[in-house]
């Protein structure tokens, strides 16, 4: 009996010890056994949200719905564009174009009217066309200067002009940029309408382009054929139309922030587009200004008093000049009747 009791005791002892060991073994890695529920197990995680959507939006309690976005790290990319990339794009395109024009002037000089002035003129742009051109041009210059001020003003003028002066100027520049945009819009739309007829590509344009417009020839009779607008002018026209529309659309997106469901991301993109196209536009217009003024004899007057010398017309736009001499558009090879004769 005593043997049995001691055996049972041993068994119980072993069992108790095993149980105790088992208990400690299971408890050891979980000292807080009471905490069976992990409250953060399925909670929102910042990094996870950013990885998924690149933006963290929730539900707010104030009317300003844009404030429901609490984190939007993409602003960092936009900052990089604005503070570094754009400055390089702007400096390279604009200074590069100026350098090209200076080199071109030094090599080619002013392109003369080869036969000299004839003393007789032909009407090239009527009053309305000139009005539209100069409205757009004046608006463009204001927009370009005030736009460049936003990109380059801080690094160029804040220290020299003083913060207050520069800020006052920038404030007015901003208003000028915003409101003169309407004149520019009107100008681009009118230009599109009044000059579209003469700006469709023709056979002559390919010859003109193949000879680079005769820009690099020095001898007489090197002028390639052209109607009222040569291929270079047509390219400028379409660049102004499409570039202008791009500037107008992105510009109005920024002028009316958050309208029609625009997000910060959309507006950042609009600004990137607006700025890049703007820089290219300025470079292009610099070339246009050069060729219209110092670069070519007899060109500017077409936009000042609307007429050009007959010899200029004969050299630069021979097909158009012939058409003008004949007094009526001819439906010849590549010809485009401008209007049906009222006979």
């Amino acid at each position: 009996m005593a043997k049995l009791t001691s055996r049972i005791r041993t068994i119980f002892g072993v069992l108790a010890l095993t149980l105790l060991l088992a208990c400690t073994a299971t408890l050891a890695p979980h000292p807080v056994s009471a905490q069976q529920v992990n409250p953060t197990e399925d909670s929102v995680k910042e990094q996870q949200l950013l990885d998924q959507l690149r933006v963290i939006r929730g539900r707010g309690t104030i009317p300003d719905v844009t404030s429901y976005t609490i984190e939007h790290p993409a602003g960092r990319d936009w900052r990089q564009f604005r503070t570094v990339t754009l400055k390089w794009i702007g400096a390279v395109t604009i200074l590069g174009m100026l350098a090209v024009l200076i080199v071109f002037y030094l090599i080619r000089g002013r392109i003369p009217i080869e036969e000299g002035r004839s003393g007789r003129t032909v009407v090239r742009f009527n009053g309305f066309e000139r009005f539209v051109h100069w409205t757009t041009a004046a608006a463009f210059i204001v927009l370009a200067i005030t736009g460049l001020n936003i990109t380059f003003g801080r690094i160029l003028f804040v220290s020299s002009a003083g913060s207050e002066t520069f800020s006052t100027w920038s404030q007015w520049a901003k208003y000028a940029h915003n409101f003169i945009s309407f004149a520019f819009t009107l100008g681009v739309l009118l230009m599109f309408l009044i000059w579209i007829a003469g700006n469709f590509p023709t056979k002559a344009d390919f010859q003109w382009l193949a000879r680079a417009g005769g820009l690099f020839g020095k001898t007489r009779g090197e002028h390639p054929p052209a109607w009222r607008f040569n291929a270079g002018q047509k390219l400028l026209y379409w660049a102004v139309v499409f570039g202008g529309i791009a500037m107008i659309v992105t510009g109005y997106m920024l002028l009316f922030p958050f309208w029609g469901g625009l997000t910060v991301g959309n507006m950042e993109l609009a600004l990137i587009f607006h700025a890049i196209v703007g820089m290219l536009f300025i470079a292009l217009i610099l070339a246009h200004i050069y060729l219209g003024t110092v670069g070519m004899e007899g060109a500017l007057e077409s936009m000042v008093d609307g007429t050009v010398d007959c010899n200029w017309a004969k050299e630069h736009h021979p097909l158009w000049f012939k058409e003008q001499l004949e007094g009526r558009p001819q439906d010849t090879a590549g010809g485009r009747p401008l209007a049906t004769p009222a006979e």
Partner: protein
Amino acid sequence: MARMKFLCDADRCIECNACVTACKNEHEVPWGINRRRVVTLRDGEPGERSVSMACMHCTDAPCAAVCPVNCFYTTADAVVLHNKDLCIGCGYCFYACPFGAPQYPKLGNFGSRGKMDKCTFCAGGPEADGSKEEYEKYGANRLAEGKLPLCAEMCSTKSLLAGDSDVIAQIYKERVSKRGYGSGAWGWQTAYRESIST
């Protein structure tokens, strides 16, 4: 000098909006401007969290980098402030800000946003500390009086912490180790390129 930061312990925030109200009242912030707001993520679902967000006073602040008139400056306490006399209301800081902190008093069409307004960490602006001009433009300057931002001081659950980076990070770490969980310091990685290891 201290490196001032905000830290919102989202596991404690109960979306009571006391921080928002405190801020509005302390600085007499006009209607339509919210220097601080509370946003609830995954509202009504398991794992819902609310975060109180305002200007985080970033290291190498993007708003200051993109400002075309250079109106921002950083104080010795690393608080990012701006000069409303120089601001032209272009809205660029809003595009660059990762936290949507800059606010504008007007609707903003035709570029008429007015002078930008944002959280000052209760540190006023460039005018003389505690002056009437400073109060009218930027609100109270509690830091100059040796007090911390009112939003955090008023926080009913002490979810929102404001103060020196090392101190608030330590408080948060202790909380996390004691309770055993923490959803992290919201916005710290974006604002300061660092987070709190717990």
